[in-house]
């Protein structure tokens, strides 16, 4: 399959599946890495990520045994890495739902090759995100206090607080994403069961496939259920990041108290999520030999989505600063002046460079077709979106109305370890997923191929 890329006629649409593989070849090529013994490269990265997870656990033990004082948080900067990283991870997760649900509803056929991959990314990213509020509680074993249950104190959560909305939004989001992902996996797990040669594999995949036999009577209900889950996920994903943004926007703090937050947060989430999909899929498609199903067309489309959402984010920045000036509120004006020229100005300008300047290279085809450039740009955008959350949270908190309570915020080694640790955890989960489960939805690729053959026959 991996032929050298031929010079391409710019007027011809790029193919979604290269060559004309039959169903058997698709099965073989997409599942081959599951049967092959694990390579040295996989083990190297996996062990590094496991080491990172061990380091993460150390930081967790320090946090729990000594308390939140080991973090750099202070008053006024009571929210720092805990919330920065929560928002960052949740945002990354949103691209998975966007690709799998919204693009499905819009009948974008190119989603098929990357949806499974992106949905797995969503699940692991939401897991990483959920660890931060739990740890930030200081006593994570009381995390169940967040949920309404009949307690001996007769107290209930305060449902008028956006932080309670967060609990419902994130737990619903994780549950629905998991159901959607698993429902999509079932036909492929059955294909793995039926293609497996060893007894253990056959039993393991057989149990996970739940006895799926591809019956027409099953497909009849299954397709509708899948579509309806996509329909439910679409408003859900928009609501989750809107609710996250309300954590800020419903407060009266300058720099947070603005109505532009929900759309600007959702666009930023999609922006960073696509950047993460690209940072992961560009190496993965090479090592796992998926170039024939994750083609240049997919990368090209993802770059265009990043460009579009990047422009929305840039518009958000512009509007924030414009309103701070035009609104005539001195506190608001000060916060934005402080962002541009205060002690955290280097972080602000890094954000502008990564999120506003870097995506502009995707106007040119040459940049979108150069995988090295796309990969570097996507990593920079991930960094940029992290600095965006840093800028929003830290600069608004560290200098608000009263100069007497201004305070600088510096992260400690525990903060950095928790951040690096969740990245390692994410990587570890992802490597396990790539090793044992079908990373590309084979049944959907077969369906797409059947449609393409049918379309060609019709012309």
């Amino acid at each position: 399959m991996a032929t050298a890329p031929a010079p391409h006629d710019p007027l011809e649409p790029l193919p979604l599946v290269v060559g004309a593989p039959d169903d058997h070849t698709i099965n073989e090529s997409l599942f081959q890495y599951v049967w092959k013994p694990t390579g040295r490269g996989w083990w190297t990265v996996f062990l590094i990520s496991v080491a990172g997870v061990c380091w993460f656990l150390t930081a967790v033990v320090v946090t729990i045994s000594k308390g939140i004082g080991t973090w750099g948080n202070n008053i006024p900067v009571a929210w720092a890495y805990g919330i920065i990283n929560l928002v960052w991870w949740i945002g990354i997760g949103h691209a998975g739902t966007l690709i799998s649900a919204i693009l499905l509803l819009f009948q974008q056929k190119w989603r098929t090759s990357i949806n499974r991959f992106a949905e797995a990314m969503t699940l692991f990213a939401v897991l990483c995100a959920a660890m931060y509020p739990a740890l930030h509680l200081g006593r994570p074993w009381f995390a169940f206090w967040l949920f309404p249950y009949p307690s001996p104190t007769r107290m209930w959560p305060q449902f008028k607080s956006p932080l309670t909305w967060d609990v419902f939004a994130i737990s619903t989001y994780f549950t629905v994403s998991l159901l959607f992902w698993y429902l999509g996996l079932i036909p492929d797990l059955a294909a793995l069961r039926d293609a497996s040669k060893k007894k253990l594999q056959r039993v393991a995949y057989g149990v996970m496939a739940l006895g799926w036999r591809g019956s027409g009577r099953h497909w009849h209900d299954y397709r509708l259920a899948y579509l309806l889950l996509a329909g439910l996920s679409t408003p859900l994903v928009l609501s989750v990041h809107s609710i996250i943004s309300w954590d800020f926007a419903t407060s009266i703090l300058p720099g947070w108290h603005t109505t532009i937050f929900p759309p600007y947060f959702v666009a930023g989430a999609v922006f960073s999520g696509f950047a993460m999909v690209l940072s992961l899929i560009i190496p993965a498609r090479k090592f796992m030999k998926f170039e024939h199903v994750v083609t240049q067309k997919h990368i090209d489309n993802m770059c265009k989505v990043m460009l579009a959402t990047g422009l929305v984010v840039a518009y958000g920045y512009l509007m924030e600063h414009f309103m701070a000036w035009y609104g005539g509120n001195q506190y608001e004006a000060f916060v934005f002046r402080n962002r541009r020229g205060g002690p955290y100005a280097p972080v602000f300008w890094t954000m502008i460079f990564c999120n506003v300047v870097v995506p502009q290279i995707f106007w040119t085809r040459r940049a979108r077709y150069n995988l090295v450039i796309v990969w570097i740009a996507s990593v920079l955008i991930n960094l940029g979106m992290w600095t965006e959350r840093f800028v929003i949270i830290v600069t608004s908190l560290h200098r608000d109305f009263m100069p007497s309570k201004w305070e600088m915020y510096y992260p400690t080694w525990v903060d950095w370890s928790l951040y690096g640790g969740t990245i390692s955890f994410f990587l570890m989960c992802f490597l396990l997923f790539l090793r044992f489960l079908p990373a590309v939805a084979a049944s959907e690729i077969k369906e797409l191929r059947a449609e393409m053959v049918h379309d060609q026959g019709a012309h």
Partner: protein
Amino acid sequence: MTRQTWVLGEFATPQGMLGAVRHLRRLGYKNLDTYSPYPVEGSSEALGLPRSRVALFVLVGGLVGATLGYLLQYFCNVYDFPINIGGRPPHSPPTFIPITFEVGVLLGAFSAFFGVMALMRLPKPYHPVFEVEAFRRASIDRFWVSIAFAPAEFEKKHAAEELSRLGALQVATVVQDPASIQVYK
């Protein structure tokens, strides 16, 4: 375990499978089913399936969820333990919207997933069609048709011959007894 006989035929293309099912239905065969690695356009019509009930499940689940979500907040913050914070009203519908929506989506998604599992009668690790070794290709690259018979109406010979005549690459029969299972080619 009830006594049943399954006649299975393998086809190379989805068109062959659909043609066979349409033909068998015209001949008056009941309890037909198709098996394919991906959803085949037109198989629901060929099998004569009624509209799926999943949509109704999701509608009911979503509405029940939204109602419960709102009532939960009302019960906790208005009825059982109202707290006066700066004179804000205990019952404030706008602030109850997000959780109402989230719980609605959650129960809608549960009813989609568990509803479809109930309709499909899954998980069900064993099924007589799995007795045929070649049936493994039904999830990979082949298309199968099955006809299930109760013992009284079993016309094995006809059904198997009919499937071969319709172009089946191979035909297998699974006879399921309470005591034993036999597979004939």
